[in-house]
């Protein structure tokens, strides 16, 4: 294959919040914003890839077509992808593959969600063979329970403290303060984080990401098309959608148990380490080349795990990286300059797309109030329920 890159000609978002509107409205707003940013008319889009939402009925299961119809049927080819929290990068991956295969020059990637209040609950009904139903029934194991198990493990293995976790929240709150798309834009102190109610020990309310409404979209094009319509566009040089290798020995939501390593030794690279490793290999770069990262901070503590999983530091050194200011804007490799899930809350099918929007603004120098200086290489990482790895490398 001659060219492995696609161009990001346009990005757009609908602000995150709890707006209570139909998810389609957020998707359309984000799509229109991305098209305007690219200077491309909707009717010139040849392929639409939607990230699905499973909480909004049938239109959510076919999100690509739903948004295409709302924008006005134009005859474009369409797909709709579901990969839980990684749905957005599944859509990016399919759109990119169609462009690289020569099937189209211009693709729209879009994801949007309207979420209910409170904890994510499983789909309704008596479903005794669905682990996502059973973990609530038999264990009362909410999502924060899994995040808290990782957090406690970090404390036991590496001596992480409540204060370290609180500092992640403080950092992200400061990063997202000026982001017009963020839902929570308020500085917090370590003391305020530590005084917020305990949800699942050791994680407190301000350290666990909320669920939000929101929408995000990208206009991706072939490099040949981009050269005619833009100068020096941001490009996507890698998309990783890897699954775990057997035996996967870290307990993953919504499972009751890990795989057994009794008969087969664990793989040399664990699942979460393999997600960006695959993306770096595709892009022909290493973690030392990364200038800025957007990672999936479902909890404050989980952000620290990601520092290690994406290769910013060896296992056990994340607290030092944080405390040395390396991952704060102004540091060597800022993490979550957008404010992350901490400031956004999770709008599932939009979130992995929003990560790419943020890195695109960062690489263009358009991230007002949160700009990472001289960023040339950005990486996103995310993970969806049931083994969906997700990472995108963005370069300029």
């Amino acid at each position, binding site marked *: 294959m001659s060219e492995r890159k696609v161009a990001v000609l346009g990005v757009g978002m609908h602000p995150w919040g709890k707006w209570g509107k139909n998810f389609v409205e957020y998707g359309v707003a984000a799509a229109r914003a991305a098209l305007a940013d690219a200077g491309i008319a909707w009717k010139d889009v040849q392929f639409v890839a939607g990230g699905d939402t499973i909480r909004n009925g049938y239109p959510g299961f076919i999100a690509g077509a739903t948004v295409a119809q709302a924008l006005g049927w134009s005859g474009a080819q369409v797909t709709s992808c579901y990969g839980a929290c990684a749905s957005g990068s599944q859509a990016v991956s399919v759109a990119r593959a169609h462009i690289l295969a020569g099937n189209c020059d211009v693709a729209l990637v879009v994801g949007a969600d309207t979420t209910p209040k*409170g*904890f994510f*609950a*499983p789909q309704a009904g*008596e479903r*005794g063979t669905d*682990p996502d*139903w*059973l*973990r*609530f*029934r*038999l*264990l*009362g*194991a*909410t999502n*924060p*329970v899994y995040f*808290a*198990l*990782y*957090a*406690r*493990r970090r404390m*036991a293995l590496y001596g992480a403290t409540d204060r370290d976790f609180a500092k992640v929240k403080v950092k992200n709150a400061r990063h997202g303060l000026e982001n017009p798309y963020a839902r929570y834009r308020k500085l917090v102190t370590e003391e305020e984080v530590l005084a917020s*109610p*305990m*949800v*699942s*020990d*050791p*994680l407190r309310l301000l350290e666990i990401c909320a669920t939000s409404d929101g929408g995000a979209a990208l206009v991706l094009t072939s490099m040949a098309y981009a050269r005619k319509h833009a100068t020096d566009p941001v490009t996507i040089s890698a998309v990783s959608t890897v699954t775990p290798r*057997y*035996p996967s*020995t870290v*307990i993953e939501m919504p*499972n*009751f*148990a*890990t*795989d*057994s*390593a*009794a*008969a*087969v030794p664990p793989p040399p690279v664990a699942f979460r380490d393999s997600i960006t490793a695959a993306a770096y290999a595709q892009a022909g770069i290493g973690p030392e080349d990364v200038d800025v990262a957007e990672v999936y901070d479902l909890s404050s503590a989980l952000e620290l795990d990601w520092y290690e999983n994406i290769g910013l530091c060896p296992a056990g050194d994340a607290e030092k990286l944080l405390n040395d200011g390396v991952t704060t804007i102004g540091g060597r490799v800022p993490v979550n300059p957008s404010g992350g899930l901490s400031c956004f809350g999770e709008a599932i099918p939009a979130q992995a797309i929003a990560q790419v929007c943020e890195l695109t603004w960062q690489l263009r120098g358009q991230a007002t109030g949160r700009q990472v200086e001289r960023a040339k290489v950005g990486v996103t990482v995310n993970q969806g329920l049931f083994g969906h790895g997700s990472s995108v490398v963005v370069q300029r």
Partner: protein
Amino acid sequence: MKTKVSALDGWFDANPERPRLIGSRCGSCRSYFFPKETFACRNPSCGSAELADVALSATGTLWSYTDNHYQPPAPYVSPEPFVPYAIAAVELADEKMVVLGQVAHGVATADLKVGMRMELVAETLYSDDAKEYLVWKWTPAARSASPARSRS
């Protein structure tokens, strides 16, 4: 007295004297699975259909733990008012796998430490007019020798 039954048939032997998780083991590559695999071994180099039920180790090492201070949504069946509970992830030595479970009633996170020895017990998860539904839970192994402590 209400009849005591397993909250989910086939997942564990709720014998109160000697509760055990029921997993499966591949007859070909000897991998363990929990919950049971019913039709094929998930080792990608194996795939055998020769799977047999096996009782998993009833003791293990605490890998991590947490608790729930807020009532989870349905289908969790909560007492009224909600009673917070701890959850443990326990590593089984022979099976080389980590299995989740609620922690026995009355044991709080302050009583737990990563690396400590844990053992399986059967406790009521919820009940209706006729039956008590039992589930497996983890508890610090030392507790089995002495009567259960109350944290009231």
